[in-house]
């Protein structure tokens, strides 16, 4: 790893000031991606500013219609939260599939969403549960927040503070892992929002990162059943392709997993 300077931010203002003062600074969440990337010298920030101790980034709040989670909340907290499990079991279940137990004790929800890895899990939940990403500068609906692979609407000096998810009528996450890396090769989050709108969000497969499948959502409106979606194909042209799976293979997985997720949601 190249040399770097570490600083712990005490407030949002402090974090932004420290980043702006740095030559080439980066905000640090739990570091489970950033530190790994720095070790490989794929990233070499002059400064890392730890935002995990900022009070505004803490806490889990559940009300009648929404679950709001502080950006510095670690995955194991989301996975083990009784409040989240009662409101959106698919979300706490998803958190329990991220990385491994030790990674879940460091990695944060804000870090995942800021990085927007095409195989990350939370982006699918954010898209399907009509989430709002709150930041130090304002807020974004999830549909406008994810702008491409590893790309988001965030400015370099903008910090995610909280994420608000709609509590759905029902939801399920179906994760198909690469058997070696355990990352999503393709995963589908299906939800029916309280206004009756079905949502289908796919991660791990899209060459622009997370995406929704409009045709499947339309089909589920009239028939919320696996067979409504398993016959709907996505365009392989929009899929990732690598040694782990071709674009056609991933496109096929989207239909299969959407069907499984619908069945699981019930």
């Amino acid at each position, binding site marked *: 790893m190249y040399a770097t300077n570490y600083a*712990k931010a005490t407030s949002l203002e402090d974090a932004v000031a420290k980043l702006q003062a740095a030559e080439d600074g980066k905000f640090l969440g739990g570091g489970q991606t950033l530190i790994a990337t720095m070790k490989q010298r794929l990233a070499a920030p002059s400064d890392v500013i730890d935002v995990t101790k900022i009070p505004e980034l803490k806490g889990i709040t559940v009300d009648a219609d929404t679950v709001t989670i502080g950006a510095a909340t670690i995955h194991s907290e989301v996975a083990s939260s009784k409040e989240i499990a009662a409101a959106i079991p698919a979300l706490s279940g998803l958190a329990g599939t991220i990385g491994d137990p030790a990674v879940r004790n460091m990695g944060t929800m804000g870090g995942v969403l800021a990085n927007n890895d095409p195989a990350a899990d939370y982006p699918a939940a954010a898209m399907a549960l009509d989430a709002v990403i709150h930041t130090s500068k304002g807020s974004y609906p999830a549909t406008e927040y994810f702008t491409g692979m590893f790309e988001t609407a965030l400015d370099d000096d903008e910090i995610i503070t909280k994420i608000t998810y709609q509590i759905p009528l029902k939801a399920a996450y179906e994760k198909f892992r690469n058997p070696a890396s355990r990352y999503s090769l393709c995963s589908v989050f299906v939800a029916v929002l309280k206004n009756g709108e079905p949502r289908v969000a796919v991660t791990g497969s899209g060459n622009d990162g997370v995406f929704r499948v409009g045709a499947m959502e339309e089909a589920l409106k009239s028939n919320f059943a696996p067979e409504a979606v398993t016959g709907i194909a996505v365009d392989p042209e929009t899929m990732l392709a690598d040694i782990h799976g071709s674009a056609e293979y991933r496109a096929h997985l989207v239909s299969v997993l959407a069907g499984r997720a619908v069945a699981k949601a019930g």
Partner: protein
Amino acid sequence: MSEVKLTVNGREVSRDVEDRTLLVSFLREELGLTGTHVGCDTSQCGACTVHVDGKAVKSCTVFAVQMDGASVTTIEGLASGATLHPMQEAFRNNHGLQCGFCTPGMIMMGVDIVKRHPEGLDDTTIRKELEGNICRCTGYHNIVKAISAAAKEMSTPAMAAE
């Protein structure tokens, strides 16, 4: 450089280290606690697992400075004097190792798993919970047996009262 103050195995330590120093390097090179191993260095294998404030983390993927003020337990801090921790004893009794390289991480993760499952552990759960710890010798069978045996030992009233 930054000054890092933390508690390691119950002892307060403080050192000036480069900010990029990983916790595992801090433990091994600054403190001489070489029981914590570096296997893959890419946060996949779990040989570097230690406890930070009672929770398992991969010490190869955290900065020492991030842990300022924390309480860290390494494999060297588990036994009390000459008496092995029940998890260590169970690994010995069940032959839960061959080359032994992954063992410190397996034992630290094993303790973490047992703590998080007070309701008891079946083998399927143990295998699932071990997904971040890789062993290239044993095929995991005796590791699972050891953690299962330790879980029973650790939940007995005599241990709980200690």
